[in-house]
């Protein structure tokens, strides 16, 4: 009888145990998420706001970009070579590469980027004429 009671308790506890196990399994990912820095960027009048910020080397940054303009924009993060490539490139959409995302009018998009090296990086929009118009910014990656 006692054994039967113990089994009943164990069966009642099983879902809880499974849930706890799942939580434990996911803990590392959740911890990683807690280490991610989020930077909100607003696009207005074909400008990034803010257009300059500093991050630490090794940081994982989630950029959340809101386009308040009625025209298409994009957020491209990288060095000068990356910016040059996109300025002459023909990719209509971005999103699969970390640090590169298209932001349609009135929409919010995000991209996550790991800053592995210290130094200066650039952000820019390479829709026709936008980079020349001044739609660009700077990211200073500081040593730890």
């Amino acid at each position, binding site marked *: 009888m006692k054994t039967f009671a113990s089994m009943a308790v164990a069966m009642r506890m099983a879902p809880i145990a499974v849930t706890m196990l799942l939580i434990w399994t996911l803990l590392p990912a959740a911890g990683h998420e807690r280490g991610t820095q989020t930077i909100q960027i607003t696009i207005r009048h*074909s400008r990034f706001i803010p257009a300059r910020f500093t991050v630490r080397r090794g940081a994982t940054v989630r950029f959340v970009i809101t386009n308040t303009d009625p*025209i298409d924009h994009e957020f491209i993060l990288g060095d000068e070579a990356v910016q040059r490539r996109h300025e002459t490139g023909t990719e209509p959409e971005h999103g699969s590469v970390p640090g590169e995302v298209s932001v349609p009018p009135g929409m919010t998009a995000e991209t996550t980027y790991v800053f592995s090296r210290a130094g200066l990086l650039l952000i820019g929009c390479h829709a026709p004429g936008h980079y020349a118009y001044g739609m660009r910014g700077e990211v200073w990656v500081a040593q730890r």
Partner: protein
Amino acid sequence: MRRLIRSLGLTLVLLVVVASPVFACAGLIGPNGAVNLVRTTTLAAYHNGVEHYITAFSFQGGGGQFGSIVPLPGIPTRVERGGDWTLQRLVRETQPLRAAVLSPEAAAKDGVRVILETKIDALEITILDGGGTAVGRWAREHGFILPPDAPEVLDFYAARSPIFMAARFDADAARQRGQQIGDGTPIHLTIPVANPWVPLRILALGKNAGDVVRADVYLLTDVTPALWPRVRRGLSVQYSAAASAELLRDLRSDKGMGWMPARGMWLTHLAINSAAKDLTYDLAVDVSGRATRVAAGFSVALPFLALLLVGASTGTTRRRSAR
């Protein structure tokens, strides 16, 4: 009597903008990538509280569709085909040597309301009421490709007047209609409005900062108008004299121009030759001497300058001599 007439607002302001090729081309679309809408010429007239706004689109060949967005100071009550020679006649009056230069060489609302739609020759005209963002969104959804400065410029104008005219020029339809290269389609808008202003900043839309914007602005008034800015880097008064009887007779004889007085007007010509980055203002016109920085689109009002302007205008207002 003259004061009475002036106080009653029996005033006419005739404004002509003969613009550089990209004038008012907020959004140019063309499947072949070519920009064939080479020149847009605009005329705005003010008389008895009504502005008559005439703009002409010149067909330059090619195919596809091309568009233009023009900010308006108010809601038009009528949109119709304009007369054929009004613009050219005014240019010839003050710039006889430049007549040949007319050749190609030479805040915000969430929604947008379509006030009026009409088709004139190969032009599809839509009058819109909305904030800058909403009008920009409408333009994008209707095939206009807006340059990067369009959001700021549309917001600038929407804060002044939420009324815009979107014009779509169908080059294929123009060719089917038998229009030849260089043929213009004048559009005449009748706009009741308290204070006229001439959109100048729109001339720089889509241009690089260092690009030069060249335009000619003509004003025809029955008194010397107060302007703001009067003189500014890149803006100068080229001509100021009584309008000839011949000019007025010719203008009155054009289609839809019968509203123009037969006499009693003063002709002013202002030339714009400005870097695009410096053309951040409009031209305020007021025959009562109240043209101000704010009316010209400057964001900060300087009351003492406005007072100076009023004083100067009162002291220098002249009647034309050729009555």
